[in-house]
């Protein structure tokens, strides 16, 4: 049962045989779910486009249920398990712990996700991803999620096991790399998420079998510890990948290991509290509880994201300035490798996640402002900015890097790949903006017919709301085209891309050396700042944040008195 380690001639990364195969299979499974979920997105956007309203109501709600689960849970978690293995095994040059058990986890994830989807498409489980009780899906809907979650938990356990093996076998010196540290953060949050899920999905499954009843409010409260925390796993993971891409594409070093790691640590402590965002309009939860939780305990998790938002581009700026791009505030950015799809994906993701996802997240998460946002289409506008622009686009970007390195294939269409992040990312920016626009006018999410045909007391939305929803359709279709291009390049390269040299395989690992000590970076930059351009961008962000925040309060103050 001897394993081998191959050193990739293109990147210098060292891949252990079992780990390599596991990472590949998990990524491909994830990408297949992304492809399927993207197909379903066509049905969603063309139905919500009021002038088209393509699918029947019954089909629409079924497709929307599957779209949510396939994208938010299955695609992202498969990719996350893959990248956890990457962080532990590849970056620490360690054999993966218990590969057979890891394959068992993979099998459970595949079986669970397929079982869940088959059940949804039988038609009796159109309960949306949230499946609020007492509305019930068929038992296999829940069973599929449970099996998938057990599989993902096994993935986390294998990741932790690999860290232990690496330390015991001394495959690296000193502390683990920042990227592995970020992966560890994501894995810890993932365990919390999946255990919360078990706490509520298992009772819901028993309820669907008629064995018990679950209180609707308890269900909502605990479900969101699954539903929102799983999105926090995404945040931790895509920030980790930002650092990774900055390192491999630009050779960027973290500005300060201390700041970046403390920011990750704040995620572990506070990010899950954001689950309360979804419960601000609910009865029965006290004001003190809502304030403590929705502020992520006084916004310390927001602080963490604002830190990563500075340190990632800041590290890029320092690296670029060291290469000599020192003119003015922004030469480093102008001369950045914009035609490298890994870099452009990450940068578009970073800006979109901060400006569109981050700011709106704080709006929705403010107890009172939530009143003008709850359950409107503003909510999907927000999370498409965080999960699609933030996470999915980042995962796409790192996949471009992994195709030659991990899959050992040449990209089949490099020019198309160069444009894909712009097509996908920018149309997603547009989609999110118009969704939020429609949401500001009150348009509901998860709603088949905004014209309320057949209702005696139909409400007539303002014309602007109809226009926005039509633009949601346009932006959605453009984004789907961007997604199709990605799937074509990714799967096409795997199937018929030119094979690349594997590099020599050895029976033992070569230990990872430490990074060379950083030189005094203060010699670069200006006005005493190592990264003045990034600081200027951060100021623009702050101004946008402050202005938009107070505009919302101003609007809220004109509403009915509520107490």
């Amino acid at each position, binding site marked *: 049962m001897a394993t081998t380690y191959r050193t990739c001639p293109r990147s210098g990364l060292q891949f252990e045989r079992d780990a390599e195969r596991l990472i590949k299979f998990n990524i491909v499974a994830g990408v297949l779910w992304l492809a399927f979920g993207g197909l379903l997105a066509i049905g969603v956007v063309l139905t919500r486009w009021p002038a088209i309203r393509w699918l029947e109501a019954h089909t629409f709600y079924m497709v929307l249920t599957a779209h949510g689960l396939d994208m938010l849970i299955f695609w992202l978690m498969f990719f996350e398990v893959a990248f956890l293995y990457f962080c532990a095994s590849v970056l620490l040059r360690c054999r993966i712990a218990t590969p057979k058990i890891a394959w068992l986890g993979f099998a459970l994830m595949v079986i669970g996700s397929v079982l869940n989807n088959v059940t949804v498409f039988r038609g009796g489980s159109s309960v949306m991803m949230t499946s609020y009780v007492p509305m019930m899906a068929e038992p296999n809907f829940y069973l599929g999620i449970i099996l998938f979650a057990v599989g993902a938990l096994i993935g986390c356990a294998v990741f932790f096991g690999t860290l232990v093996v690496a330390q015991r076998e001394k495959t690296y010196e000193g502390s683990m790399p920042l990227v592995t540290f970020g992966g560890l953060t994501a894995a810890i949050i993932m365990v919390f998420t999946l255990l919360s899920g078990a706490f509520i999905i298992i009772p819901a499954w028993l309820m669907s079998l008629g064995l018990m009843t679950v209180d609707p409010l308890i269900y909502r409260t605990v479900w969101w510890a699954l539903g929102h925390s799983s999105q926090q796993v995404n945040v931790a993971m895509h920030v980790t990948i930002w650092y990774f891409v900055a390192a491999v594409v630009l*050779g960027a070093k973290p500005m300060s290991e201390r700041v970046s790691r403390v920011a990750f640590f704040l995620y572990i402590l506070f990010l899950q509290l954001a689950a309360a965002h979804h419960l601000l309009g609910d009865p029965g939860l*006290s004001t003190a509880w*809502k304030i403590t939780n929705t*502020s992520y305990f006084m916004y310390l998790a927001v602080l963490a994201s604002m830190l990563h938002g500075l340190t990632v581009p800041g590290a890029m700026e320092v690296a670029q300035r060291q290469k000599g791009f020192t003119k003015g505030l922004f030469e480093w950015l102008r001369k950045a490798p914009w035609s490298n799809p890994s870099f452009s994906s990450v940068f578009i993701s970073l800006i979109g996640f901060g400006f569109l996802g981050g700011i709106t997240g704080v709006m929705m998460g403010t107890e*009172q402002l939530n009143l003008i946002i*709850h359950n409107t289409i503003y909510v999907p506008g927000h999370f498409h900015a965080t999960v699609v622009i933030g996470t999915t686009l980042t995962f796409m970007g790192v996949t471009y890097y992994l195709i030659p390195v991990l899959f050992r294939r040449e990209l089949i269409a490099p020019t198309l790949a160069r444009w894909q992040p712009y097509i996908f990312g920018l149309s997603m920016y547009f989609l999110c903006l118009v969704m939020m626009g429609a949401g500001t006018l009150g348009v509901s999410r998860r709603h088949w017919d905004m014209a309320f045909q057949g209702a005696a*007391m139909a409400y007539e939305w303002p014309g602007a709301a109809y226009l926005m929803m039509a633009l949601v359709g346009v932006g959605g279709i453009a984004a789907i085209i961007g997604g199709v291009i990605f799937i074509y390049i990714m799967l096409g390269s795997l199937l018929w891309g030119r094979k690349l040299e594997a590099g020599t395989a050895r029976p033992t690992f070569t230990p990872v050396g430490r990074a060379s000590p950083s030189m005094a970076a203060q010699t670069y930059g200006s006005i005493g700042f190592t990264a003045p351009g990034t600081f200027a961008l951060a100021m623009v962000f702050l101004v946008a944040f402050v202005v938009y925040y107070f505009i919302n309060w101003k609007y809220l*103050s004109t509403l009915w*008195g509520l107490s």
Partner: protein
Amino acid sequence: MSAILPPADRLWYKHPIDRVEGTWIAIALIWCIILFAMMTGWHVWGKQNLSTETYRSTPAQFMAKAQAMVDKYTVRTETEEKIPVVAPPAGSDVYLLARLWSFWPILELEKDKTYRLHLTSMDYNHGFSLQPANINIQIVPGFEHVVTVTPNESGTYSLVCNEYCGLGHHRMVSRLYVK
């Protein structure tokens, strides 16, 4: 490439903080405190805070109270289903129930008067989305949520269900009048 390599110093928490980071941490922290103060302060000085007064309730109990209000204060009925339009006195307890797939009854309130609005659902989760004011509250079955409301503008409002509640969800829409 040091983000993917073990840091040069084992004790990463002793790594120096750059000036640009230090400045940003200070600014971001101040902003976070303002965010927190705004949300808490609005509970003291703001006029739009969602009440958390809640009671456990059953459909039968709630229906009895709603029916009593309807019997006493109905002024007319609307639509083919003859949904009662109820004009309860200012300051009173008013009841609104959500069920598959309608709201009942239709309320007629007075501008600048305060009411204790009781909300519940008879079956699944529903949404209370008051348009065009755009006030959105979750309605959860088994719980009676008492929200104190003071309408500040007269007109005909619409009440849209914005929590997915099954196949008739998109037809679940009602009215609310403010005189």
